[in-house]
């Protein structure tokens, strides 16, 4: 803030007066008041003097030869532009019309003859105050404009970086349909999707508190965690824990991120869901037409400490063609002219009225437009369908090392006991280890699927003793996973052992995986005798393991599983 000085600074004042005596008198008066004086004898001289010297204030006689004061004032004001150059008319014109004319042409005040020094001094002071006020206003306006441009540029850069981050996933996969309005990003909406090494798909729809840059900034570390962990094969629980811890650590106290996180498994035909503070998602069964709400059972990310964070998920079965629909609160919160909310009921009505599942987005957008009277600009919606896995092609992972040296002859054994089984998922670590062997990299999807299946069988059916036949219907599914969580919580004893052995063979090599558990085992003969089910790969996942690996077999009453992978020389 520029302080207005109390004492008057000397100004340069232009005096335009055709009477020589008056001009002399006025110059003396003004000089005596401490100012510098320029003089002109007519309007044309006045304009020229102004153009050359740019005085700060003008005392202008109204009636002058060559060019009168009115015209000169007009021209001087035009030359001054945005800057305020006060013009005080000198006049012995008494009619109010003439006085009004002074003001019309841009004069700011007038002074009558005979000149009164005191009044002149007061008017000069007052005009100068106005002049300086205008100067301050212009300076501040320019400063604001500069800052504004700077901020806009920063936002542009942030958005460009963010777009790279947000779109390095697989949102363009054929089974995903999404709508994200232009301001959704800068309203803190985040939509991410990525494949896991096993070919499952993780999807996150998030909504940060706040708007603009602060909201978008929180989204970047979250996206990094999501992509990094998904690519390494971590499950939802670990990814959620890490995202929550990160946001809790870096965001200010009043900021958090509502989010729904999904893991869609095409092979197991199920979807795992975690919803923290988002509106209900909907699982739409094409066969029955039913829509199961996926309710928020948790607090948003970034609120709870790691110790109190709840990573429990719900699992639902899906059939081919079923869809999961998620939406941000921009839809529910849309208001009409009477400040009524669109609300969940109206959304349900749109669902009920929807005839073509593919047109659901359009139906909702139309309903919103009809309700509000105009389009809403910060709505995010996404729909993920369960398609035949053959229709999807996850991109091949990119490795950053050169492939010159890799370990070819080694073995390692792990034993994971009860306390570890409860809270540690060893699969990402094991997979990273195996991917050090370059020859195995092209089979990383199959490797991960097989390892995951072996481990989950060993843990769930072996150590926890769960019966997979429970997973025949929706209610059974829910019960199965409830039991799994309960038994895992209560686990005291038990182990899963993993042995990995890599040996060279000819130009390539061989990997032998053995997994053992401390459970009761199963009837190997009976399970092997079942026909290989090409559509539903559930149960002991035995079919999966047999299809993806080589020479799979089970010993020790089913407690020990063994499978091999081979690779040729690299091209």
């Amino acid at each position: 803030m520029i302080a207005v000085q109390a004492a008057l600074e000397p100004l340069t004042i232009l005096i335009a007066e055709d009477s020589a005596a008056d001009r002399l008198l006025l110059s003396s008066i003004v000089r005596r008041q401490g100012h510098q004086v320029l003089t002109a004898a007519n309007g044309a001289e006045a304009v020229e003097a102004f153009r050359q010297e740019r005085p700060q204030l003008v005392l202008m006689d109204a009636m002058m030869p060559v060019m009168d004061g009115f015209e000169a004032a007009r021209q001087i004001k035009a030359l001054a532009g945005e800057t305020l150059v006060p013009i005080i008319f000198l006049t012995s014109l008494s009619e109010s019309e003439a006085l009004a004319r002074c003001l019309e042409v841009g004069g700011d005040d007038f002074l009558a003859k005979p000149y009164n020094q005191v009044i002149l001094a007061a008017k000069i002071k007052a005009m100068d105050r106005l002049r300086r006020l205008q100067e301050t206003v212009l300076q501040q306006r320019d400063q604001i404009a500069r800052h504004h441009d700077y901020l806009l540029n920063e936002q542009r850069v942030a958005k460009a970086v963010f777009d790279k981050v947000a779109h390095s996933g697989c949102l363009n996969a054929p089974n995903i349909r999404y709508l994200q309005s232009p301001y959704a990003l800068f309203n803190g909406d985040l939509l991410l999707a990525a494949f896991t090494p096993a070919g499952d798909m993780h999807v996150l729809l998030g909504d940060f508190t706040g708007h603009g840059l602060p909201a978008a900034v929180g989204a970047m570390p979250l996206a990094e965690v999501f992509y990094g962990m998904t690519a390494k094969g971590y499950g939802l629980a670990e990814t959620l824990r890490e995202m929550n811890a990160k946001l809790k650590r870096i965001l200010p106290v009043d900021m958090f991120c509502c989010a729904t996180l999904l893991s869609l498994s095409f092979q197991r035909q199920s979807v795992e869901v975690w919803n923290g503070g988002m509106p209900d998602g909907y699982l739409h069964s094409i066969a029955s037409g039913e829509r199961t709400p996926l309710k928020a059972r948790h607090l948003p990310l970034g609120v709870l400490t790691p110790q109190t964070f709840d990573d429990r998920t719900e699992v639902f079965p899906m059939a081919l063609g079923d869809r999961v629909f998620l939406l941000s609160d921009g839809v529910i919160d849309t208001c009409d002219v009477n400040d009524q909310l669109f609300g969940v009921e109206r959304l349900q009505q749109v669902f009920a009225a929807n005839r073509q599942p593919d047109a659901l987005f359009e139906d909702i957008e139309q309903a919103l437009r009809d309700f509000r009277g105009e389009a809403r600009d910060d709505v995010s919606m996404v729909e993920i369908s369960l398609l035949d896995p053959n229709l999807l092609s996850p991109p091949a992972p990119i490795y950053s090392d050169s492939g010159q040296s890799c370990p070819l002859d080694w073995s390692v054994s792990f034993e994971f006991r009860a306390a570890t089984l409860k809270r540690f998922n060893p699969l990402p670590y094991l997979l990273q280890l195996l991917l050090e062997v370059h020859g195995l990299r092209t089979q990383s999807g199959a490797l991960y699927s097989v390892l995951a299946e072996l481990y989950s069988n060993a843990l769930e059916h072996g150590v926890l003793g769960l019966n997979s036949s429970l997973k025949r219907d929706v209610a059974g599914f829910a019960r199965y996973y409830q039991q799994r969580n309960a038994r895992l919580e209560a686990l005291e004893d038990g182990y899963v052992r993993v042995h990995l052995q890599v040996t060279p063979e000819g130009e390539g090599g061989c990997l032998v995986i053995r997994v053992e558990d401390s459970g009761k085992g199963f009837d190997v003969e009976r399970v092997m005798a079942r026909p290989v089910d090409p559509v539903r790969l559930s149960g002991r996942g035995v079919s999966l393991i047999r299809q993806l690996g080589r020479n799979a077999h089970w010993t020790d009453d089913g407690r020990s599983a063994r499978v091999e992978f081979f690779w040729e020389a690299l091209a």
Partner: protein
Amino acid sequence: MADIHLDPDVLSALRDVMEDEFSTLIDTFLADSEQRLRQLTVAGDATQLLEAAHSFKGSSSNMGAIRLAALCHDLEQRSKERNLSGIELLIADITREFALIRPLYEDERTRAGSAIATVRPY
């Protein structure tokens, strides 16, 4: 009509403001005024009269010549109204008034000190 020909308060204020340049001011005014008088006598139409009278009124009021300023004001009004019959009489009054106050100004000038009577151009 006021009886004051030269207002002493105005004069002392002028002396105060002008200091060394007081004489110059007087000289300038006297020279200007002669020119104005000439303009008045040769003025061709009402507009020229109006402008000359207006200007003369202004400077005489600044210089404290009250009666002269009042006469010029009358002339200005009548020129505006285009009431020009007998206007020569008013102009004659103005000439006489100026002739009257001129020596008074010269006295003031002398009293203020001797200064070379030059009119500095601007």
